[in-house]
């Protein structure tokens, strides 16, 4: 599996660390809504199909990336910086030409 890091280009998956489901929304720090916190800490979507994920380029620039990956085919549909503002043009790194 190759992940295209917007800084470093297409790199092998062994350089990256999976940092979890990218759909989770962290409640406001002062929030006392335990259900919301519970959903954030424990609930994972685990879809068979396109999945929004956070990966860290831990063996490279250490940036966190928002990666859309198909969990069935392992196709990477897009990668972008998790930090706003630097979105890369959805590199398609896998799948049919």
């Amino acid at each position: 599996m190759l992940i295209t890091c917007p800084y470093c280009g297409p790199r092998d998956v062994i350089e990256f660390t999976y940092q979890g489901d990218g759909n989770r929304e962290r409640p406001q720090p002062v929030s006392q809504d335990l259900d919301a916190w519970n959903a954030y800490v424990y609930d994972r979507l685990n879809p068979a199909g396109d999945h929004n994920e956070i990966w860290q380029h831990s063996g490279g620039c250490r940036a966190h990336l928002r990666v859309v990956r198909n969990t069935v085919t392992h196709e990477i549909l897009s990668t972008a910086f998790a930090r706003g503002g630097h979105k890369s043009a959805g590199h398609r790194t896998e799948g049919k030409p």
Partner: protein
Amino acid sequence: MSSRRTETGGRIDRLRTIRFTFDGAPYTGHAGDTLASALLASGVTLFGRSFKYHRPRGLLAAGVEEPNALVTVLRGDVREPNIPATMVEIYDGLVAVSQNRSPSLAWDISALNQLGGKVLSAGFYYKTFMGPVIGPLKGTRFWMFCEHFIRRAAGLGRAGTAPDTSRYERMNAFCDVLVVGSGPAGLMAAKAAADQGARVILAELEARFGGSANWSGETIDDAPAADWAGRLVGQLEGNDNVRLLPRTTVWGYYDGNTLAALERVTDHKEVAARGEPRQRYWAIRAGTVVLATGSFERPLVFPGNDRPGVMLAHAAERYANEYAVLPGERTVVFTNNDSAYRSAVALKKAGAAVVAIVDVRSDVSSEMSRLASEADAELLAGHAVVATEGGKALTGLKVQRFDLTSGALSGDERSIHADCLAMSGGWSPTIHLASQAGARAEWDPGRQAFLPPQPTQRWIGAGAFTGSFSTAEAIAEGRAAGLQAAGGTASLAPLPVVEAVPGDPDPAPVFEIKAKGKSFVDFQHDVTAEDVRLAHREGFVSVEHLKRYTTLGMATDQGKSSNVPGLAIMAEALGKPIPEVGTTRFRPPYTAVSIGSLAAERFGDLKPERLTPMHDWHIENGATMYSAGLWYRPMIYGLAGETVEQAYVREAKATRESAGIVDVSTLGKIAVQGPDAAEFLDRVYTNMFSTLAVGKARYGLMLREDGLAFDDGTTWRLGEQDFLMTTTTANAGKVMQHLEYFLDVIWPELKVTVTSVTDEWAGAAIGGPKARAILAACVKGTAVDNAALPFMGIVHGEIASVPVMICRLSFSGEMAFEVYSGAGYGTRVWEALIEAGKPFGLVTYGLEALGTMRIEKGHVTGAEIDGRTTARDLHLDWMLSKKKPFIGSAMMDREGLIASDRLQLVGLVSLDNRPFNGGAHVVEELDEANPHGSIGHITACCYSPALGKYIALALVKGGKARHGTRAFVSDPLRNRFGPIEIVSNHFYDPDGSRMHG
């Protein structure tokens, strides 16, 4: 043994004679021979004994699918078992031995198993040995006893025990087009893609490129097919864009068009050239893959189909044409399709007598009848072979009339004298890699075979792989695939012209001839047609279960020849069509792969060693080192004759009496800098850091999002926007990743950078009543008295002209200081401190004494912050700020995390004056015979010189309420039971008067 080598022909080098041994006997062959062809040429018919019944077995095939003729190759002390003789190229000095026989191949005592055939049916071992539920063996470990003998009787080759001294290599390769298989289709694809300028890798699992062109006897562009192929290979060799990989099996097709291949670089050589590895593992990332992997001929299933001399028709043809060996002098061909007629003609041309062609079909085309007469063979249409005769070689066979639709046999048996039976049960495309790539194979009723599915990755099929069995089709599809893979457009240029024997590619749907006797489906695992039916009678309906119960297709050949016949027989038993029964998915590897090649250069201890700047000093000064994660740290600085306990007790005692120094360079250190650094730390730590004054340090605790304790350490405020965070040695990486995640993903608005500076600083902790005096004696540029350097204060100065940063903080419980300097000056500062400490009785101490003093103080480490404990469990709730939210603050007060019966940190004192063991349980009532009722466990233990007792830290249910009560330690594994007292974890100097001084 007579020579079966023909006078002319073949693609062997008759001028080069090669000498080798098989089972100790000397043989010769020629360059270009495999072990199989060379032995066959020498008249050998018996190559091995079968797995279960020890039946004599000969060659079935000529290629990688060979199930019977498995040999062990010996090189010095190293033995490699289970290699098909068809895949071993001979070289001078080759030593090969047969397998699964005792005492010898010809006289095998276990062949008596054949007499017990009924008993040794599918599932025999499960039923008999695994679990007798009645009788005298009920509930015994009878299986355990029997297993030893059964394992020895069954099985294939024996693995060696000598270390493999060979060198293996790993290569990463990138290409636009990977072509797998070098038959006419693969060669055309490689050529077409290379001509487009694409970077091409062509992998061929055999030694010789060309595939079927080497033995088909066909003519391409007016030249023998083999010459045509040779010319094409020559052109590819001259192209810089093309990498040719002979002897390279592509064995795995993974995500993202990544393929794994094994190149056997020197297995065929007597001596490897300098620098050559034995095998090379290729990880290939291909833009597009052209699968031109060809097809396998299937055996027919009939009684005695495993007798030596019964082989696949194309294999007989291949031995004759490619290796110039006649598998027999009187050959009978037995087929359900047209392709075997070509084989018959080829064998005839090579000099064998083809006595008869037995065809299960009664309607044979006129073209085939013509081929039969060309082969001078009697055509027995509408007949089937029902038995074979002979021992270690075929002597004859019996045929009967056969009805294609009913499968019924009729009429008298007729005996035919023959020493070779060439059979063909149709062809199965080699779809393994396509199946691995993720798609389900599709049954084609015409070809009676599973055809490759629609691609789910970027591959294109060509040739027999797609079910197009003629060479003309292979050439056309190969060129089209190569062009498409390289991004070219379809070519209208004329294709090479093929002259070939005609034939209908569709076989008759006949897989088995049902007659009396053992009919083998899986030759290597000795699975018969009757075993498959027995599995069905016993209720196995899923093909996956059938496979596992009968072990059909589970031998080293992975059912390359047996899968489809096995499925067909199962389908018939179930009364279902084959596509409804389905096929099993192929998994990597396609053929056996040496573990050595997977490891390649990566073996032994692969972890980097992290050494502190003072490492060499520790070694030179008698430290016993031990590994803590990747780090090496001094355990003790033992004196001659001291035990470990004596050493750490001496070190700890001396520290508390005068002073001790310890290397703390391994602590994780992270520079947290920026305008929002203080705010960030407030969010990360449970306690406040924004209120910390510059030049002061504070002990901090971090929680995880779920509210459990994560890590602790001190953080120093070096400037308004500049903090130095320390973490535990073990968690340095995890904390760094934690901080980066929150800064990058959750709070991108915070202007903070985090930098790992663990390796930039050397650290020495010096503690004890004399510590301050020692510092005062060697530090320049700053005072270190109580006013200048109060508890948790930081000063900057110099030691031995090296700038240092000193923070007064204590892990040992004594008045203590951490002295940090640039890593490169660590030893210089350390030595200066040692020198200054000499008049004060300063000792060096290691991790054992460090641990002892922290246990005496009741400080927590990773043993207590174990991912299950909360701040409250560890009595750190005073650190939980109520003024601000922090990571974990919302979740830490959940019901289960504040329950009163949680495991809480306590101290234990041994009442029988014997040592504790880490991990031992704490119980309320001692029951040595039946240990139970654990209320907690010991996390750390030592002999405390300060208390003169054996003590421990423990996590005990509702621990705080148990202070002052008695309990027991229960450690059945180490047989340590005894009374204890539960006390506070603060054993020593609980009010901290010593460290505050």
